[in-house]
């Protein structure tokens, strides 16, 4: 018994194990997510980064069971509080949706139904999981709208989505997602459709609410700035797989994988040297139908020749601890990525930083 209790304590709140989401199409099997594993505790934030089509949204939708009823093949295990979500039947999964696991979507205008009032849509989310009167739900929604910082919430309850500004709509979406006090919140590019000042407000709001409710958050983004501000852990995805995973500070200051270097190079730095080059990742995202052999990043990797033989083109590297320690994982054949990053990448993307040392 005691041992069990001990085990439970060690068990992370969310554990994704070898998650695969494959879509059979007429042209062949699309491996949108291919063997993804991570863990997340309550009150912690995981930032999943990657370019379009890297599988970040697809893998997170799988947690919510949104692929059910489609032809997607989902394999692996998703343990939430020890319960395997993929083993639940549809009715059980539906009870968790919106209650234990909630999601915020990228474009709040299209994510809300144009024909129903904002208040009604949020109240609907509450009443699915709570047997309460319309009036009680209304009171609860107004409280929630106030919490996310919408002025005059009792009046705004009866407004339609098109009468809200972009930032307001995203606040309303957050209210909708958090109204049932979910223990896990998935935010799929929550600030992409918003301008920069509103972005900052929304991220602040999410952080405050996380502190208040001790929610675990997965934030999906292609913006490393968002990850730097919000996340405790960062997971970089490429072609449906994790290519780098570790504490945010570690991943952002000592990246071990050329793709992460590419992402960092392509971030414009407003405080940095205006003469520093902004380097895009060369080439195009890989086809998920026929991914490159070996390491999926090899056709775009400029450091490929530093790996002996044709290892990069023939063998998929494992996701293993890098030279800097056990918690920082990387999927790369490079023997000493740290020195390449310090000596070759930093001088190119941030010359002033390189000179300082």
């Amino acid at each position, binding site marked *: 018994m005691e041992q069990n209790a001990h085990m439970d304590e060690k068990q992370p709140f969310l554990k994704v194990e070898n998650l695969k989401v494959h879509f059979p199409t007429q042209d062949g099997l699309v491996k949108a997510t291919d063997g993804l594993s991570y863990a997340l505790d309550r009150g912690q934030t995981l930032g999943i980064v990657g370019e379009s089509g890297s599988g970040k949204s697809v893998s997170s939708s799988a947690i919510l069971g*949104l692929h059910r009823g489609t032809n997607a093949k989902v394999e692996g295990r998703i343990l939430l509080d020890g319960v395997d979500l993929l083993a639940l039947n549809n009715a059980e999964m539906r009870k968790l*949706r*919106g209650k234990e696991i909630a999601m915020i*979507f990228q474009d709040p205008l299209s*994510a*809300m*139904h*144009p024909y129903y009032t904002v208040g009604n849509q949020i109240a609907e989310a509450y009443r*699915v999981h709570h047997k309460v009167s319309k009036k009680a739900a209304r009171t609860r929604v107004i409280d929630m709208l106030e919490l996310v910082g919408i002025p005059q919430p009792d009046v705004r309850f009866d407004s339609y989505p098109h009468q809200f500004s972009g930032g307001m709509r995203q606040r309303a979406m957050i209210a909708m997602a958090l109204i049932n006090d979910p223990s896990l919140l998935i935010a799929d590019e929550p600030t992409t459709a918003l301008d920069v000042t509103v972005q900052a407000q929304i991220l602040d709001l999410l952080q405050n609410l996380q502190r208040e409710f001790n929610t675990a958050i997965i934030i999906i983004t292609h913006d490393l700035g968002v990850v730097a501000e919000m996340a405790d852990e960062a997971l970089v995805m490429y072609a449906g797989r994790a290519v780098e995973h570790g504490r945010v500070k570690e991943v952002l200051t000592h990246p071990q994988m050329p793709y992460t270097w590419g992402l960092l190079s392509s971030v414009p730095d407003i405080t940095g040297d205006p003469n520093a080059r902004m380097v895009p990742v060369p080439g195009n995202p890989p086809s998920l139908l026929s991914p490159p052999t070996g390491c999926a990043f090899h056709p775009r990797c400029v450091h490929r020749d530093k790996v002996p033989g044709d290892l990069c083109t023939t063998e998929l590297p494992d996701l293993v601890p890098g030279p800097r320690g056990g918690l920082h994982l990387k999927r790369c054949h490079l023997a000493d990525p740290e020195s390449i990053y310090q000596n070759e990448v930093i001088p190119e993307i941030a010359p002033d930083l390189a000179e300082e040392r």
Partner: protein
Amino acid sequence: MWAYAARRVVIGILLLLALSLVTFILFFASPADQAKLACGKQCTQAQIAVTEKALGYDKPVYEQWAGFAKGVVAGRDFPIDQAQREAAPETVTHCAAPCLGFSKYYGETVNSLIKDYAPISISLAVVAVVLWLFFGVLLGIAAAVTKGSILDRGIVGLTLLVYAFPTFFIGVFFLKYVVVKWGLLDYPYYTPIAEGGVWGWLTNLWLPSLTLALVFLASYVRMTRAFVLESLGEDYIRTAKAKGLNSRAVLFKHGLRAALTPLVTMTGIDFGTLLGGAIITESVFAYPGLGLLTVQSSQAWDLPTVVGIVLIAGSFVVLMNIIVDIAYAFIDPRVRLG
């Protein structure tokens, strides 16, 4: 909202005025001698002249049209010529506003003609619209939610097959086989509600209305299927699922609501057009509705009746469009009018 509706009504009335003028001009551009046709083949030159005066054909087109327009507003007496009315007061027919004219061919006012013929067309259209909407939307939703399955293909294929048959074929098939050969249903004769009650009225409308509905069924199935599929692909459907709603609520409350807008538009237009008479169906079943009246009066060059029908049919279309526009405001809050 009401200002908007009033504006639409005014525009509608102007549209109908223009419509009647165009119909007038078209008829007068034709080489037929209206008075001679109205009078009959055996008429002498003198009799034709009398008829010409009685119906006002001796006046220029714009004056005739002005008289017609005035009759719509204030009513009119026939014959138009005052001297003729005074000479034989017993032959005077008063046509109360909105007067649509007097048909010499039928020997009565166009108003009373339409009063006799319109209920049949309206009955047919009402039962048909209920049939095709009910089955069209139902089958369309079934096809959409089972997209790509045998059921979906079956529904779409079968309705398309039905659509490929001309109306007169389906109508004649129903009459010859379902009624005469197999004796499954009684031969349909139009029975007003006042005579046969609602049931008698309805049972006699089954076959002609079904014939009419089958024409529209295929397009409504396909439209509903397309609109529902489009709506189900929207982001807000994903949100609805993420809330934990069951699939019934997702489909009916969120999915169907958005598909309603284009369906209401199409139904309004089709129903409005159909109220003006279904020429083929009415001919096949010998139902004396506006469609049959259109055919008869056109063949007889009976101008007043044709103008009257055009105007009535036009009014139905205009009216349905106004109703659709107002219905929009109730369906879609984004077009709610200040």
